């Protein structure tokens, strides 16, 4: 069968849908509406919410996790996952703490923090791509490994004495209430948006997630791209480690405990398919903001933490399940 024959038999439209219509019913629109609704509810429920400093403090609830979620989104779109990100934060922070004791100053500390993150990510990437192990198994292992090393080094002790200039990353403000953390998050979100949606690298990430075999036969160097994505995720965990360590002003091996699940929650809430192949950076950014709005808003009302996690769980299930139910309902009506 020749290609001309195919073209005759099937009508292939230039666009699948009216662009306006698809934008209106997209996942991102839904997330924007949810974010606006929560924002409005917060403003009504607490007199302290609509205040420049409150809104600025709110960003600290999601920025570090959100930065990792940007890279994690690419990794999950490519059909892999990294559960060791919180452990990478702990190990990277611990090594930075050791460097402080050795007299390393701020620029060196940042380099070490990012370097350890990158190295951990590369280690994950090597195990997955060279040995062909499933990433969920590899990173469950390295999750214990990285944090275990931090515990061996520190035990029940803590590293303190970070230089005063180091505090800028997690506690500093660029202008008025605009913190360094939020500026970095915006820049990184734009970079990741460009990488995923405007470069051939981004197209290859989607291709791998949809069908790695087809991608391989199309000349995509699947293993290499996966390796790069693991490195990128490790690097972003390193960035988060610098920010969090700077914000806490100290290191304990229990730092960032449980962050990996919150990061993955953001990615999934952001509309990235957990099976790989689809998703967008805008969705992940919106999901990060929603998580920040929910936790801070409920915090202002002094809602106990356990109720807060129930709420986030319900939010996740609702937002994930409803469009699926909606589609089923429409399919049934159509048929």
């Amino acid at each position, binding site marked *: 069968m020749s290609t001309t024959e195919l073209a005759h038999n099937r009508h292939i439209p230039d666009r699948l849908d009216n662009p306006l219509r698809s934008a209106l019913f997209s996942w991102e629109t*839904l997330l924007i509406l*949810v974010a606006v609704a929560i924002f409005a509810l917060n403003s009504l429920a607490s007199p302290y919410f609509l205040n420049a*400093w409150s809104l600025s403090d709110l960003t600290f609830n999601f920025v570090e996790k959100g930065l990792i979620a940007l890279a994690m989104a690419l990794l999950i779109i490519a059909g892999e996952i990294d559960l060791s990100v919180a452990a990478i934060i702990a190990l990277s922070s611990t090594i930075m703490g050791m460097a402080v004791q050795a007299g390393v100053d701020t620029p060196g500390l940042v380099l070490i923090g990012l370097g350890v993150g990158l190295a951990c990510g590369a280690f994950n990437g090597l195990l997955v791509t060279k040995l062909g192990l499933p990433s969920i198994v590899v990173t469950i292992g390295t999750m214990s490994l990285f944090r275990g090393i931090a515990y061996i080094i520190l035990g029940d002790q803590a590293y303190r004495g970070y230089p005063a200039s180091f505090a800028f990353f997690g506690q500093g403000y660029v202008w008025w209430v605009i913190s360094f953390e939020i500026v970095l998050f915006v820049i990184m979100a734009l970079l990741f948006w460009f990488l995923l949606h405007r470069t051939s690298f981004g197209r290859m990430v989607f291709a791998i997630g949809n069908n790695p075999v087809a991608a391989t036969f199309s000349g995509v160097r699947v293993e290499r791209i996966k390796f790069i994505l693991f490195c990128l995720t490790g690097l972003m965990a390193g960035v988060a480690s610098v920010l969090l360590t700077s914000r806490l*002003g100290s290191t304990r091996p229990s730092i960032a405990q449980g962050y990996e699940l919150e990061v993955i929650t953001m990615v999934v809430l952001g509309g990235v398919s957990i099976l790989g192949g689809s998703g967008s950076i805008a969705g992940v950014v919106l999901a990060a903001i929603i998580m920040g709005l929910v936790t*801070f808003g409920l915090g202002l009302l002094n*809602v106990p*933490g*356990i109720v*807060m996690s129930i709420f986030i769980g319900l939010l996740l299930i609702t937002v994930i399940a*409803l469009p699926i139910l909606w589609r089923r309902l429409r399919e049934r009506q159509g048929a």
Partner: protein
Amino acid sequence: MSVLKKLFAAAAITAAIFAAPAYAQDNVKIALVVKSLGNGFFDAANKGAQEAASEIGGVEVIYTGPTSATAEGQIEIVNSLIAQQVDAIAISANDPDALVPALKRAMDRGITVISWDSGVAPEGRQLHLNPSDTDLIGETIIKLAADRLPDGGDVAILSASSTATNQNAWIEAAKKALPEKFPKINLVTVVYGDDDSVKSTNEARGLIASHPDLDAIIAPTTVGVVAAAQVVTDQNLIGKINVTGLALPSEFKQFIDNGASQAVALWNPIDLGYSAVYLSHALATEKAKAEPGAKLSIGRVGEVTLDDTNAAAMAAPFQFDKSNIEEFSKIY
């Protein structure tokens, strides 16, 4: 958009439930931040905090804490308390260092910050309230045994591990108090059960076998004290050997009931929460100042004196005996 409807409904219900008491503007708002919620010890502290609030009047206590005991979770809570412009934060910290920047920020915004139970480094709080201190604990564990031995007698200590910092400091303090305050009490030996039930049981058996005249076993550890009381019960030595020390009332109630122990002690969380609110209120309303050497009232619990680092010890460990074990065993 049924998604939105559901979200609205859920959030509105949540808001309605929790927003109502949040508005009383004229009250002094004191936040009692604990290591984690769902812990009987801290729920008891909250009970004391509410008691202090109603005693002082015009005080609203916000009882809050993260779900899991992490410093990051507590920082999120501190940030939201800063935004709510509370008057004081009284915190039992999950990490003495990591909370310092957040609490410093709270103090910069004019909020009174104290730590209690589990402390924060001095630069992150105005004062710290310890439940007790080493000398008081050392003295109390001997007193618990000595009170039942008016004519003196032999006692032995069953400790945790030989490297446990807390226990070693208490035992040193106990040894120091012996010749001055309890001249008739003879400490025959100190053994170590490593906070392990099996090892503690074996050590207790060994003590009884090698010291036939032993009158009391003192275990300044919640694991050791249960093991020793069980051995005394099993060997039918109730009435001959009195087991005492530091014990959790809920774990230890049966041994007070069966007579293996006359009394044990531990910090009283109700008094601790009460005192934390009392001190926060005094500092927030500028009725008192936190400075080294200052003597501050803590209402019905008494008075504390601040040391060089603005830390203070509340009181000697609280005694539990037949008269009150029933009540406290339900709390923690």
